[in-house]
């Protein structure tokens, strides 16, 4: 019927129109979400890398302030004492003090007189380790048990003995049709390691594994991850391989959480464990080569990377990889290790690939370099290889190819920046040497959120972090704005605002795009009242506020000052530390303020400050819970601090 046909035509036309409308809208939504995700990612990554760089700056500042400190301290009342103490303090921080032989150290690390109490409910280890014990350890950690320090030390000692026998470059082969499983950064995230073992099986003779560095820091179970990896390595020394990462370095650990984790979990023997780990880290192999064709290392290469040089270097002499940049002396590197070897090791641990040809220093990280596709091509040809697998950079999908698929970045810590931020991945490599990637995401929170909620959450926490950073740089920002505002109107154009902010923050973020999230006050013609803006960023001016904002730097300095790793610093050290920090940050804090603060923090009035208690007040340990519970960290009075101590949920 004519009627029927035209009616259905009409319907079809309308339904098509409706479909297209919705599809267009949906694609717009996806594109806008993707953009938000990208700049959120940028924020986290920029802050992470600039944190690493700040770490170096703090150290180098402390070092260069040496002479100033003498001057500052000499104005104190107890002159000689202070000068002596300060001098000692500063030089002790930067001196590497182990001239003992290995045998002497073995005696120091002896575990034999450590008693395991009856009430201990964790696993008991006997050596040589068996696979049942290694698997048992895995189970125990899954059930949130802690390994007793006696067994920790024993296990670490055995590990140390094994590592000393290993070459700088592991040689792995996929003969007998074995597939090697390669994992990237784990960063203390036990859930991810358990997930990998669940999906892929635990290490065994048939299932060799290679772990590509950065096992520790940031996540809360770094020591457990190490213990698991080491125990499997002891059971299967020819089938479990470890590469060193840039976080296998005790100076980095001071800032990024591993030191604190160990001292918190092992209150009595933590120091000894950390000292032993320092040595173990320096003995970790630098790289691995599979079937002579695939190079696996943590950071990357540079235009001068030479496997021959790396194979012959004394790798254990490079204990912390940043030192040479700062110190004028060669304290941290013995004379056996040449400058070239040292620099090559740094490149291997810190470099990042870039898309342009060439090779240039990696100023963002402060170590290693950026290397281009031409360098990859050249290196692979010279060494008759076909692929480089590296880690070191978080990738949203857990992995990313670049340089014409000749470089593969692999990252195994899912939800790294925040819940839902990224997946993790591991790679299986068989005799055909074609990488087969498996992705995953540790699920505790993610499945409950839709993609949109997940992006929203991550975005909110990124912006919060960014606002804190901006406010922490208030005085520098004010200076920068004033430069653009010669007539002192209090206003700057949008362009000038973006330039000024970037010139101070150096985060290379899309400030214009972020502007609507960061600036609410704007005049009709689009200029920004910068004083209003600072008020809007709304952070209380109290001293505790200031401490909170600079907590990472503060904690780093604390831990450097706490040279015997006791977890305590004296009141005097605290005062001097704070003085250093306030000079570094160009802030005005009176001595009286510091004294008052120090007294309130020393809650049991015994003249020393428990670092952990102090920083715990800022809830550093659990980043996630801080974000999830959304509780305000801003406390006005000292009594709040003591109240928190009794709060069981803190």
């Amino acid at each position, binding site marked *: 019927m004519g009627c029927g046909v035209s009616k259905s*035509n009409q*319907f*079809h*036309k*309308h*339904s*098509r*129109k*409706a*479909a*297209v*409308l*919705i*599809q*267009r*809208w*949906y*694609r*717009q*939504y*996806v*594109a*806008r*979400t*993707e*953009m938000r995700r*990208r*700049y959120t990612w*940028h924020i986290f990554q920029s802050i992470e890398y600039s944190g690493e760089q700040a770490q170096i700056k703090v150290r180098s500042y402390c070092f260069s302030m040496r002479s100033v400190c003498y001057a500052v301290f000499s104005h104190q009342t107890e002159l000689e004492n202070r000068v002596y103490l300060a001098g000692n303090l500063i030089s002790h921080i930067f001196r590497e003090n182990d001239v003992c032989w290995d045998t002497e150290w073995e005696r120091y690390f002896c575990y034999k007189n450590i008693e395991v109490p009856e009430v201990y409910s964790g696993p008991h280890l006997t050596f040589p380790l068996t696979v049942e014990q290694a698997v048992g350890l895995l189970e125990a950690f899954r059930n949130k048990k802690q390994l007793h320090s006696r067994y920790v030390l024993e296990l670490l000692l055995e590990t140390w003995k094994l590592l000393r026998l290993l070459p700088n470059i592991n040689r792995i082969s996929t003969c007998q049709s074995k597939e090697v499983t390669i994992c990237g950064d784990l960063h203390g995230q036990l859930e991810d390691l358990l997930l990998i073992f669940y999906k892929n099986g635990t290490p065994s003779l048939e299932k060799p594994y290679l772990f590509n560095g950065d096992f520790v820091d940031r996540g809360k179970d770094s020591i457990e991850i190490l213990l698991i990896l080491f125990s499997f390595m002891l059971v299967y020394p020819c089938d479990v391989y470890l590469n060193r990462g840039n976080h296998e370095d005790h100076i980095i650990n001071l800032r990024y959480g591993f030191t604190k984790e160990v001292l918190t979990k092992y209150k009595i023997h933590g120091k000894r464990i950390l000292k032993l780990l320092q040595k173990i880290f320096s003995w970790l192999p630098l790289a691995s080569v599979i079937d002579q064709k695939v190079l696996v290392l943590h950071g990357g290469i540079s235009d001068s990377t030479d496997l021959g040089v790396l194979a012959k270097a004394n790798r254990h002499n490079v204990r912390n990889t940043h030192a040479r940049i700062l110190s004028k002396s060669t304290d941290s590197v013995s004379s056996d290790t040449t400058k070239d070897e040292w620099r090559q090791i740094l490149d291997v641990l810190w470099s990042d690939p*870039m*898309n*342009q040809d060439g090779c240039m220093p990696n100023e963002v990280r402060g170590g290693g370099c950026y290397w281009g596709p031409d360098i990859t091509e050249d290196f692979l040809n010279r060494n008759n290889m076909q692929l480089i697998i590296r880690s070191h950079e978080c990738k949203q999908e857990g992995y990313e190819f670049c340089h014409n698929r000749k470089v593969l970045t692999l990252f195994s810590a899912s939800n790294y920046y925040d819940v839902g931020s990224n997946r993790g991945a591991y790679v299986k490599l068989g005799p055909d040497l074609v990488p087969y990637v498996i992705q995953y995401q540790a699920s505790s929170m993610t499945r409950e959120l*839709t*993609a949109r909620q997940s992006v929203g959450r991550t975005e909110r926490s990124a912006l919060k972090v960014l606002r804190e950073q901006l406010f922490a740089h208030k005085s520098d920002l004010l200076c920068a704005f004033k430069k653009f505002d010669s007539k002192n109107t209090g206003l700057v154009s*949008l*362009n000038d605002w*973006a330039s000024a902010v970037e010139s101070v923050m150096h985060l290379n973020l*899309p*400030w*214009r*795009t972020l502007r609507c999230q960061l600036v609410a006050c704007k005049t009709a013609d*689009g200029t920004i009242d910068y004083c209003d803006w600072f008020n809007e960023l709304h952070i209380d001016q109290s001293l505790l506020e200031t401490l909170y904002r600079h907590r990472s730097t503060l904690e780093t300095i604390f831990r450097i000052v706490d040279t015997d790793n006791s977890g305590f610093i004296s009141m005097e050290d605290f005062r001097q530390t704070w003085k250093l920090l306030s000079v570094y940050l160009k802030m005005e804090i009176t001595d009286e303020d510091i004294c008052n603060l120090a007294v309130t923090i020393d809650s049991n009035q015994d003249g020393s400050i428990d670092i952990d208690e102090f920083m715990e007040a800022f809830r550093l340990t659990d980043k996630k819970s801080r974000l999830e519970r959304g509780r305000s960290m801003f406390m006005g009075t000292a009594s709040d601090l003591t109240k928190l101590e009794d709060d069981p949920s803190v």
Partner: protein
Amino acid sequence: MAPKKDPKAPAKKAEPAPAPAAAPAPAPAPAPAAAPAVDLSSVKIEFSADQIEDYREAFGLFDRVGDNKVAYNQIADIMRALGQNPTNKEVNKLLGNPSAEDMAQKRVEFEAFLPMLQTIINSPNKAGFEDYVEGLRVFDKEGNGTVMGAELRIVLSTLGEKMTEAEIDALMTGQEDENGCVNYEAFVKHIMSV
């Protein structure tokens, strides 16, 4: 920074027949600006300096190679990220109806992108809340303010610029009630509240 190349003028395409009935033109007005051959060099840029800087920054966010350009297959998304709502078809027209290989390989720099964006902004295809509700009312068989989720899914995956199952799932999450129905006014409010 890569040296600037001359902006590419996309090849002028032959004029198609006036848009057929099924084309995505909501009004009976003449076909939108994209239908006749597009001469991008004659498009007058009407953006303010501030807007251009905003767009330039967003453009940079999508540049994954570092050559200050983006791939053809990213253009539609950048425009959407900037608040526009082009169909893939409209964007393809602007790019000169490139092949699938061109879409993946060819790249566009910012100066060439601006006239494309201007063209899309100038086109009269703006849909508002009412248009979406009207569009969905078509499926409201009982006239009670709801549509069947299942029917919507079929339509979205078979008509127009088809969506994949994963995309549809993401869109419809939490929208269907226990009978599988979607209240479309609420749905439109939801989709417009990005």
